[in-house]
């Protein structure tokens, strides 16, 4: 019997004009979002490559590594970030690395190209959150109340069908019909990626698969909510109205409002305050450093080379002390701020999780590697790179240059030896390592589980409500 009901539900769903129209819109948008994502990824890669090449080009013709002051590293575009942009457009992409000092990334895409910030991005996660949920509501709002209005509910229940079977069949039938058709559109979109030359590694396919799975779970939540509301109302017009209000509040209001609320509730020291503290400490250290430098006593020798070495060693030890103090202080300030931010985030996201949209967004962002963790991850890796870079420069120049120090040698004896230009390619390359799939999955599991739970919850609720439903 269940099979008959599922069969009927699927046939009815697919045969309706409502389905044809909404599905067409949905499918076009899904494919469009994949297309835009792929095209956008390619533009970003071009920019990234050009910027990277320019960074090396500027070193051409330089004859001494001492002259190399700044090195820029960039956050490379990730293929999946084009589909789930997350915060990837909001955080700084470029980091100027010097041999020492704190790193700050800047040039976020939205700051640099505010045109994209005006209306935000059209990406897959946007289509999921807004369009897919609307699609679910539109096709589910009259599941029960509509059949009642048409009088078919009475007919169906005149047969020996338990109500549980009926509602189970309805849900499974509509879910199967809709998800299969959505998966077709998503499949076409996925095919577009390799066709348009987006390099998708096996791990990326896994991620994409999980993102789609999360999307389907989210779709299921809205379908079961629609089913539930449809079983608690007598008329389709009121169930639709109620669902629309739920949709507006859930999709548009709760996530935004909860983050803003958390911003008020948890105080995080502003970047400016932290920056001012760092700057005043740094200038204090610089004064000490200068005094230390002035009190240098040279060795009793006439050999310039030896003198240089002794002086360099002395400077190195001074620098090391200063660096260590500064690093300790910045690390402490950063950690304080980071911990406050963590609390703020926890409050914001847990509040936002009242709405399934938050779970979807957070889970897909984790899976695509564009969650809030991206900023910290990039920062940590840039810091690690800084060490490599400093070691490299030290090896090349024998000293630890940085800041505004300017060092140049004057050859008194006019020893004219032609200097070899440096090879910019020797510069250690920065490679951004995205989180591994198991790590991402672990971070996303909670939200995926929550979505699954909501599915079950709303199904159970509609099941209970339907048992008491007045079918007349």
């Amino acid at each position, binding site marked *: 019997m269940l099979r008959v009901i599922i069969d009927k539900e699927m046939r009815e769903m697919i045969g309706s004009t409502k389905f044809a129209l909404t599905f067409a819109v949905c499918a076009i948008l899904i494919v469009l979002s994949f297309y835009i994502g792929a095209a956008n990824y390619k533009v970003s890669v071009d920019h990234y490559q050009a910027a990277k090449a*320019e960074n090396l080009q500027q070193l051409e013709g*330089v004859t001494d590594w001492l002259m190399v002051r700044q090195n820029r590293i960039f956050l490379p575009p990730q293929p999946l970030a084009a589909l789930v942009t997350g915060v990837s457009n909001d955080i700084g992409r470029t980091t100027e690395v010097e041999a020492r000092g704190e790193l700050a990334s800047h040039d976020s895409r939205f700051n640099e190209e505010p045109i994209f910030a005006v209306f935000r*991005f059209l990406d897959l996660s946007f289509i999921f959150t807004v369009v897919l949920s609307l699609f679910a509501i539109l096709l589910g709002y009259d599941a029960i109340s509509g059949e009642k209005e048409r009088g078919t509910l009475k007919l169906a229940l005149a047969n020996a069908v338990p109500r549980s079977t009926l509602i189970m069949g309805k849900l499974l039938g509509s879910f199967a019909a809709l998800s299969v058709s959505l998966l077709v559109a998503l499949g076409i979109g996925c095919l577009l990626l390799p066709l348009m030359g987006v390099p998708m590694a096996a791990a990326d396919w896994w991620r994409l698969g999980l993102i789609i799975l999360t999307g389907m779970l989210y779709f299921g939540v809205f379908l079961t909510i629609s089913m539930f509301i449809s079983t608690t109302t007598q008329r389709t017009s009121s169930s639709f109205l109620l669902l629309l209000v739920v949709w507006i509040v859930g999709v548009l209001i709760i996530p935004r409002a909860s983050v803003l609320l958390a911003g008020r509730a948890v105080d995080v020291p502003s970047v400016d305050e932290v920056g001012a503290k760092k700057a005043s400490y740094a200038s204090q250290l610089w004064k000490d450093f200068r005094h230390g430098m002035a009190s240098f006593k040279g060795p009793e020798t006439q050999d310039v080379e030896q003198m240089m070495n002794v002086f360099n060693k002395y400077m190195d030890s001074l620098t090391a002390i200063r660096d260590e103090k500064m690093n300790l202080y910045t690390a402490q300030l950063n950690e304080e701020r980071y911990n406050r931010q963590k609390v703020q985030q926890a409050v914001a996201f847990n509040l936002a999780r009242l709405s399934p949209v938050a779970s979807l967004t957070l889970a897909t962002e984790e899976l695509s590697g564009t969650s809030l963790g991206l900023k910290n991850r990039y920062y940590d890796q840039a810091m690690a790179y800084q060490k490599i870079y400093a070691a490299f420069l030290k090896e090349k120049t024998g000293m630890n240059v940085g800041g505004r120090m300017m060092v140049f040698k004057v050859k008194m004896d006019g020893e004219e030896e032609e200097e070899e230009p440096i090879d910019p390619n020797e510069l250690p390359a920065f490679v951004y390592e995205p989180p591994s799939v198991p790590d991402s999955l672990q971070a996303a599991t909670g939200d995926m589980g929550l979505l699954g739970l909501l599915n079950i919850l709303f199904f159970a609720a509609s099941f209970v409500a339907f048992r008491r439903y007045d079918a007349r």
Partner: protein
Amino acid sequence: MFTTLVRKELRAVILSPKFAATFAVLSVLLLLSVYIGIQEYREGVKQYETATNLSDQRILEQTSWHNLYDKGYRSVDPMQVFVSGLGYDVGRWSEVSADNSVKLRNSAYSDDPVFAVFRFVDFAFIVQVVFALFAILFTYDAVNGEREQGTLRMVFANAVPRTQYLVAKCVGTWLGLVVPVCIPILLSLLLVMMFKIPLTGADWSKVVLLVGISILYISLFIVMGVFISSLTRRSSSSFLLSLVVWVVLVLIIPRASVMAAGQVVHVPQRAEIEGQRDGYAQDRWTQFYADMEKRLLDNARIDEDQATIGDDEFDEEAMWARMKEEDAARKLVQTEIEEYEARLLEDWRHRKETQQKLGLSLSRFSPASAYQLAAMTLAGTDISMKPRYESALNQYRNEFNSYVEENQSESGQVGGVMIQIGCEEGVKVGTSRENDGLDLSGRPTFTPPAQPLSEVVQPVVTDVGLLAFGIMFSFVGAFVSFRRNDLR
């Protein structure tokens, strides 16, 4: 007869159960958005004040004219209470110094990306997305719903011209939807006054304009709903159609057109420009150091000829004088690099403007985007905010730099610490000739650029025109299709 029709329509709207629900939701949302806007504004002002104070304090503590820099901060406009626009996306401050060119950095979202995850909710957003949806909800069955109920035939059994009927439909729904919503809007304005948001006279006229444009935008959706309803025979299909239209107009066209413009016009990353500048700078500095080396050697030869070595007093003075010369030469190189960068940046900005113009013009096919752009312009948080601030900051940078230069030459200071290593003298580390504090009186300060009202209103006119055109177009469309409508 006209008034009867309007009255009937008004009653139908207000007495429908959906009116109560939507009105309540809309009121709560509008008030909530303005309340959030007020809170965010106050927070923004607090942050701005702390930051500028800290920056002032920092500059007063400086001891050297050399490398003296200031920070210019973007101020918070009280209009951001209603339209946040790009306020959180564009950098908040820029360094102002001789060494670096002006560049706004540290956007609020990049500092605290937690707020970027779900974005913002403001007055303009509620009107653009939610109110427009409600307008459609009330008008999708305006004509075909009546036919389905059979009341359409009854109406036209009377001597009513079809035009009059359509106008009455629009006016009645408009009165029923827009007038009640004025209550929460007025309440939210009261909220703004209660929290003492410093809105000037010009700001108030901007607020009034914003409300006017919002009403115009909603009117467009009302007329469009009537148009779609007279185009289709069944209310279920007109509902679907108008929902699709809403999704496409509000959510898709604006985003898609900007993305399309991004594909068509390529604008390189700023980092690429900076890389080019650095390459040029590297060449120039290499040249400079080679020259400097030559100069030093020449000087050493002169010293030797004059046999003044050992005369420490003279040596030191001569050294400082020469360092001054070097400083002047250094500044010359810096100016050259700056000019080179300015040329690069000009070309870059030009490309960006082309991209923006294309993207925004395309997006204006959708009234939602015309509305949003107009609202952002009114609030001063539109796309021109960044160049506006950058040019003001550049102007300030010129003032600041010439001030610093003047004072530096007056004080006779030369910056830096000199370390000499030579076979005769050994290693010598000099203390720099710096004073303990600087006399910073008469220092120029950065004042955020103000926008005169006329400058704000002018670009809005196009968008208002577009919205008005949309209303006329929809109405004529409704009229034409309704004339051919089969009433049975």
